[in-house]
């Protein structure tokens, strides 16, 4: 009798282990392709604290380069952004980060405030699956689920990705237990060049009011930062293409909000001269996002503002931090040198 129970227990344990293994195997790795999906998880590898945290969507992880901030100003920073990262996802990621560290300032890119409802399951997955299990993760999942999604499938991703068994590739085996680092402190490098050729504007909208849900989470971010004694700075990246268009009406609302709450708000659209942006060389996809050359110019420009506004002096003299960051800078320069255009 006892033996039988032991046997069954062993079988059950083996099954659970097998399922766990299958889960590791079947989850998308986001290594060779769609690297954006690997961004959120890389934050946990950081060993040192940051002066600045960037949050937002692709307009942060393609437009600001932490290694440049280090090289030029000795400032340490991290970008916690992922593809179409929605305001509530940004909020909960911020909440999670502020439990771990207290930076001088948080920089939030406002473009995603145009979204007031859950959008897309695939983007949700890329943002949320990388988060470690926490109260914030659960809240973020609840706020983000589109119709037909279930909380359970985030806790047990096997339930979501089980049908990938027929599309497994070498990558899935290679990265079973570890991942490479794809970003530079959250910056995803693009070295390609595809000039911007169109000055098309966005199509007119029926309603220019930014959704209340989005503004609610902005307010939550503000309150959270206030509570933690961290400055909140709003930015709008300089990119402005017809598909990802930033309307003047939206801008006015953000400017009003910033003024009412005494926040700094920097809209970089139209500052090409000051920043030194050249849309024929500084974008990799025809103007929707900056490439590394554009991002460096913007970072350099914005870094000066930040140092001035926040009184940042840098950590160059701190040997421990400097060692960590010089290594990061090396890796960054190497990739920049090599280029990553397909």
């Amino acid at each position, binding site marked *: 009798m006892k033996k039988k129970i032991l046997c069954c227990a062993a079988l059950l344990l083996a099954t659970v282990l097998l399922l766990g293994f299958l889960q590791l195997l079947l989850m998308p790795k986001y290594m060779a392709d*769609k690297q*954006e*999906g690997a961004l959120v998880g890389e934050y946990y590898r950081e060993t040192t604290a940051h002066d600045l945290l960037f949050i937002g*969507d*692709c307009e942060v992880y393609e437009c600001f380069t932490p290694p440049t901030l280090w090289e030029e100003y000795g400032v340490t920073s991290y970008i916690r952004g992922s*593809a*179409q990262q929605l305001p509530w996802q940004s909020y909960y990621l911020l909440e999670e980060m502020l439990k771990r560290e207290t930076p001088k300032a948080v920089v939030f890119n406002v473009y995603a405030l145009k979204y007031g*409802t859950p*959008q*897309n399951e*695939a*983007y949700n997955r*890329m943002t949320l699956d990388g988060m470690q299990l926490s109260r914030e993760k659960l809240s973020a999942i609840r706020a983000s689920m*589109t119709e037909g999604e279930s909380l359970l499938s985030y806790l047990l991703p096997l339930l979501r990705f089980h049908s990938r068994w027929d599309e497994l590739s070498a990558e899935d085996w290679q990265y079973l237990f570890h991942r490479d680092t794809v970003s530079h402190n959250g910056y995803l490098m693009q070295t390609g060049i595809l000039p911007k050729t*169109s000055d*098309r504007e966005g*199509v*007119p*909208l*029926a*309603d220019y009011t930014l959704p209340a849900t989005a503004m609610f989470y902005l307010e939550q971010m503000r309150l959270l930062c206030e509570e933690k004694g961290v400055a909140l700075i709003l930015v709008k990246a300089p990119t402005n*293409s*017809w*598909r*990802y268009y930033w309307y003047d009406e939206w801008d006015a609302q953000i400017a009003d909000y910033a003024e009412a709450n005494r926040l700094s708000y920097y809209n970089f659209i139209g500052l090409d001269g000051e920043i030194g942006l050249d849309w024929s060389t500084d974008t990799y*996809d*025809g*103007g*929707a996002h900056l490439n590394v050359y554009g991002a460096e110019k913007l970072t350099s420009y914005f870094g000066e503002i930040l140092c001035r506004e926040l009184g940042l002096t840098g950590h160059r003299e701190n040997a421990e931090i400097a060692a960590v960051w010089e290594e990061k800078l090396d890796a960054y320069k190497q990739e920049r040198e090599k280029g990553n255009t397909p």
Partner: protein
Amino acid sequence: MKHILCLLLSVLLALSLCACVDPATEKETYAAAIEGVRIAVDDPAEPVLSALGEWSSYDESPSCAFEGLDKIYGYGSFEIQTYTEGGKDYIRAIYLIDDGCRTQRDIAIGDTAEAVKEAYGAPTHESASSLQYAGEGMTLTFLLRDGIVTNIQYLKDVA
């Protein structure tokens, strides 16, 4: 006995009233008809584009992280935007931008909001700056300024 019967019958009646839910209105797919070509949101783009012939302007834009371009084709009075799914292009939006073309129910830019309501009935959503008609997986929007139609959009709904 009779009383019980009456009681039960009235409960039955009440129940059947309970069972009534609002009739689900059959949603219409609004389509544009331009130069004799029917264009509707979510239709495959290829046949429409080849029927319309050479476009006068073209722009494209990638999406974040995922494969697939959004493309926008201009034809003077109207524009067609497409999206990619499974390697094929489908229509995401149709924009009528000047009075050179009219909707299937004969509304064009410059018409009044009253004319729109006469042709399309009560809108699903109405504000000073727009009239919106929800269709099957898409919305037809008339943008207004001072009660005059300035722009007409057939837009795919976000899933």
